[in-house]
């Protein structure tokens, strides 16, 4: 007799009804926005990346649509750590059983540690360090996730301070991503999230003869980054033992299964909320369930993983 199909799983000790994660910067600005996403089938929320002070972000246009996905230069707009955590707390009052990842952004290990002290006093379940925003390079320089030393310093210091598990969000815009993954694990990270947006990239308005985005360039996301995200997760999965939230270009149930098969424990769904609408979470959940049924599996833990890279060698 076949068992009932379930998409529920566990991540660092917390239960979730679906492996789908709302990644940082998508709909996670307000408590009600978080609620809306959960009501539409998402399992775990990540907040917008919060900074010590509030930021209005770049002027518009901050997004540009193209056939392969999206280009964005939001510029880390957020209400600041205090107001941002208040939104998380308001959400947790409404839906206490839903795990929330508080994403934070800073440029020094000390500021990351300061942010994590604030997060300690909130209802957040996990802390995510955004080490990889490509949209604020004019202001802050290259993404931190490019440097092993910086990743080590930040993760080590935050791990001393944080009372909740720490996730390092990594950039695909490096030549040694899996090495950075190993570095983050060695420094004490409890999990990884990858990939942040690719690039930066650029689009041009051929009539006004100007870049479309106000900041000239922006991070690339959506369907066109999926192959890169899968490769990044697979290479890192082959070398680390901590769980990975696989994010980038996931838009269907089979995309999500590909991501799980490549080594992800959870799957982020961001830009697909634009292309597929808010229904996309339920559609992806359904697609995963259909895959499970097709192969006579009853839970996502039974989805086979690719053989690890070094095992093949």
């Amino acid at each position: 007799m076949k068992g009932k199909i379930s998409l529920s799983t566990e991540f660092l000790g917390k239960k979730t009804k679906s492996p789908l994660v709302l990644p940082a910067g998508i709909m996670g600005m307000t408590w009600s926005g978080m609620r809306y996403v959960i009501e539409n089938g998402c399992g775990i929320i990540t907040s917008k990346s919060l900074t010590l002070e509030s930021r209005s972000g770049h002027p518009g246009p901050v997004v540009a649509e193209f056939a392969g996905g999206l280009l964005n230069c939001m510029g880390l707009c957020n209400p600041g750590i205090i107001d941002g955590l208040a939104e998380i707390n308001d959400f947790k009052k409404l839906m206490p059983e839903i795990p929330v990842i508080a994403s934070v952004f800073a440029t020094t290990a000390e500021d990351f540690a300061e942010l994590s002290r604030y997060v300690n006093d909130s209802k957040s379940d996990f802390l995510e360090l955004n080490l990889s925003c490509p949209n604020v390079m004019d202001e802050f320089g290259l993404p931190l996730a490019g440097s092993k030393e910086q990743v080590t310093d930040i993760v080590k210091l935050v791990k001393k301070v944080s009372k909740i598990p720490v996730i390092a969000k990594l950039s695909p815009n490096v030549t040694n991503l899996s090495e950075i993954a190993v570095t983050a694990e060695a420094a004490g990270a409890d999990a990884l999230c990858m990939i942040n947006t690719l690039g930066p990239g650029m689009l041009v308005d051929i009539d006004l003869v100007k870049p479309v985005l106000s900041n000239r360039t922006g991070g690339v996301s959506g369907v066109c980054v999926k192959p890169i995200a899968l490769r990044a997760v697979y290479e890192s999965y082959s070398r680390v033992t901590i769980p990975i939230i696989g994010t980038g270009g996931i838009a269907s149930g089979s995309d999500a299964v590909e991501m799980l098969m490549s080594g992800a424990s959870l799957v982020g769904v961001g830009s697909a909320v634009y292309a597929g609408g808010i229904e996309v979470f339920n559609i992806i959940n359904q697609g995963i369930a259909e895959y499970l049924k097709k192969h006579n599996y009853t839970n996502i833990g039974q989805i086979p993983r690719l053989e690890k890279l070094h095992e093949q060698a």
Partner: protein
Amino acid sequence: MSRRNTIAIARIVEETPTIRTFYFDYDLQAKPGQFIMLTDLANGEKPFSISECESDQFGVTIKKLGKFTSNLFEKQAGDLLSFRGAYGSSFSLKGNNILLTGGGYATPPLYYLCKELLRKGAQVTVVNGARTRDDLVFCERFENLGLEYKKITDAGCFGRAGTSVDIARELLSNNDYDMVYVSGPELMMKAMRELLQSYPGLNYEFLFERYMKCAIGICGNCTMDPLGIRLCVEGPVLAGHQVEKLTEFGEYHRNAAGKKEYFK
């Protein structure tokens, strides 16, 4: 995917010293209540409601407020602007005996709605209010439609001083409307909702404004508490049954950083 279009301003009509309508020769195929994101790729990008829409042209009617709109008021016919959209929900066009109530620069989208309602044979009454004469627009356009049309300013420029809500109150008590559409400043709409609560069976739709960045439903800046619906996708037009549930309506909105700002 909605395409970005960059085309010349076809003409500019000065409605009042601080309000202008910008026309573009383009078949936008927008529905009444929808908006575009408009930019010159130099001074930001902002949302504006469609005030007129035909197969060969559309218009947006804009109040000069801050940096973006001030720069826009420097533009001439022939200058290039870029827009994307039309985005968002639209008025349902329901009803046979309809009351439209508008305030200030938010009245023009009701003009496009009004023309569509007349096209389908509905009977329409329009109330147009504003703080001063400089904020009262589209009077001639509405008058030319040959319907019952009332205008009023807080300052009493046309005799009586008061708000569009004052007139709507009288019209509602003397008529049997089956639908009400409202577009105006938030506190005016709040007063309208209070008024409409004494007409329990009467359906209505409001056109809202919230700070918009992406306009395609991903950044989450424009969500409305407690539902979490995005004003750029599920709005800007919301039906009465949704409006009744909004706890932030008339209380606060979130600014460009997502920080709450309370209405005064």
